[in-house]
């Protein structure tokens, strides 16, 4: 059993994980309701609205960041982090394992939310290209958020509360409405990837950067989170 397997078991056994799953199911349900209540020619517009205001900046951010923070927070609270620390496994590898496990669990939990959004978009005619970019958006945004959650939990004690404040105040509010703030928002780059899959992306409010840049930004944020987390873990005082 590796650090990834240990973390996955911990996440699977936590009630918090299943509450996050309910959030995803609700988001998927909302997308389906919109699909069946909206007029046919508005489906793609509604897809843009759902993904840019609900799926990416709220559901993905919430699930991935909370899972990332939880996986470290639980190890710290239970003192089991000591058994991981008392191994010759490099600290960057340990942090990468936490990010990976939080990311895998986030992707599993995001299936209902992603499926609902995908159904809405496909109904509006976005096609396989749109589906590909939606999956890319969910995958890379959740990876970056998971890394951010892990890093936060290594830096502060109340990482989940701090993370939720960040999501509510910044990602889901200011960064969604203020054009000048979107370049400093992980969710905005995720939304940019969703928009890359839609032929007429005018309905999306996204940063004025290319999809490739958005991919690079999200990957760099995730890698930086792992690297900084590894450095922090190597220097922090353990309980």
């Amino acid at each position, binding site marked *: *059993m*590796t*650090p990834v*397997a*240990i973390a996955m*078991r*911990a996440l*699977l*056994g936590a009630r918090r994980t299943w509450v996050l799953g309910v959030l995803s199911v609700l988001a998927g349900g909302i997308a389906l309701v919109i699909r069946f209540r909206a007029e046919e020619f508005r489906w793609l517009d509604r897809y843009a609205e759902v993904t840019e205001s609900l799926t990416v900046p709220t559901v993905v951010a919430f699930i991935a960041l909370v899972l990332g923070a939880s996986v470290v927070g639980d190890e710290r609270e*239970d*003192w*089991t982090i*000591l*058994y*991981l*620390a*008392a*191994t*010759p*496994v*490099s*600290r960057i590898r340990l942090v990468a394992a936490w990010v990976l496990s939080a990311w895998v669990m986030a992707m599993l939990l995001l299936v209902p939310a992603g499926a609902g959004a995908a159904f809405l978009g496909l109904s509006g005619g976005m096609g396989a290209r749109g589906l590909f970019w939606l999956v890319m958006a969910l995958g890379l945004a959740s990876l970056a958020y998971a890394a951010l959650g892990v890093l936060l939990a290594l830096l502060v004690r109340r990482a989940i509360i701090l993370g939720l404040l960040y999501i509510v105040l910044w990602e889901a509010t200011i960064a969604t409405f203020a054009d000048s703030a979107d370049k400093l928002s992980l969710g905005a780059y995720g939304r940019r990837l969703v928009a890359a899959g839609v032929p007429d992306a005018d309905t999306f409010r996204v940063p004025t950067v290319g999809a490739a840049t958005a991919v690079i930004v999200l990957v760099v944020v995730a890698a930086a989170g792992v690297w900084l987390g590894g450095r922090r873990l*190597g*220097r922090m*005082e*353990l*309980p």
Partner: protein
Amino acid sequence: MSATIVVDRASKWFGDTVAMGDVSFSVGPGVTGLLGHNGAGKSTLLKLLAGFSRPDEGTVRVLGHDPGREIEVYRRLGVVPDGDGLWPHLTARGAIEACARMRGVPDPADATRRVLERVDMTAAAERRLGGFSKGMKQRIKLAQALVHDPEVLLLDEPLNGLDPAQRRDVIRLIGELGAAGHTVLVSSHQLGEVERMAPQVLVMVNGRLVAEGTTAGIRDLLAERPRTVRVEVDAPPAVAQALIGEGLATSVRLEDGVLIAETGDVREFAVRLAVVARDAGTTLRAVEPVGEDLESVYAYLTDRARGAGR
């Protein structure tokens, strides 16, 4: 004997509180007890040695490595931390095997099987750790520390939560490890417990190392300290006079009809008190030391360390 653990003028403080100050010592293979009351700095010292914390001043070395920076040392170092934390969702076998795998043990499954047998936990191997008692958790914590057969073991209060039979088994196991050439540093706040485990002892008081040497030597040191003894006899004045006259007590006083004697040699006092009482034509009803709690013992060692050096 080559030193496997070397601590050189190490200090650690948290804000204005000095958790450990200017501690230096070295130990080699065998069992060494780390004795001190709660809050004496034992756990702080063990955390520094385990690499979970870093000294603010001075250095710590385990097998020549700085455990806070050189993680390769964990292939040769086993740690039983304080606290009950174990992965509650894993089975005993799963948790120990994970530790073995992460520490690079060639055959983790076989090493896990053997160490579970060694701590007598084979029967509970497939149970989840979340349902374990404190005593069972202690044995699993010991098993994970032993699974990679480390040269150095740091054990923080490993007997906590064990029943008498389990204590006996773990003390025997620690003795075997020391006899086999492992370096074992084991902390406890009970002198009697340390005596049973370790021929060598380090005594910490208020973050400082106040005594070190053989356990028997520390016991002698403690025996030599001035002691107060409460003596209940039928004729206290006669016994008091005899104690002073024989040079067995440096001072005596009566408190509610009970004789309180100060002595510089408690062994001699104990041996000759009965004779003195008999010669005084009285009967001893009760004899008990006053101030035998650990705090007073440590206070004596602290004063002694301040006055004469170690």
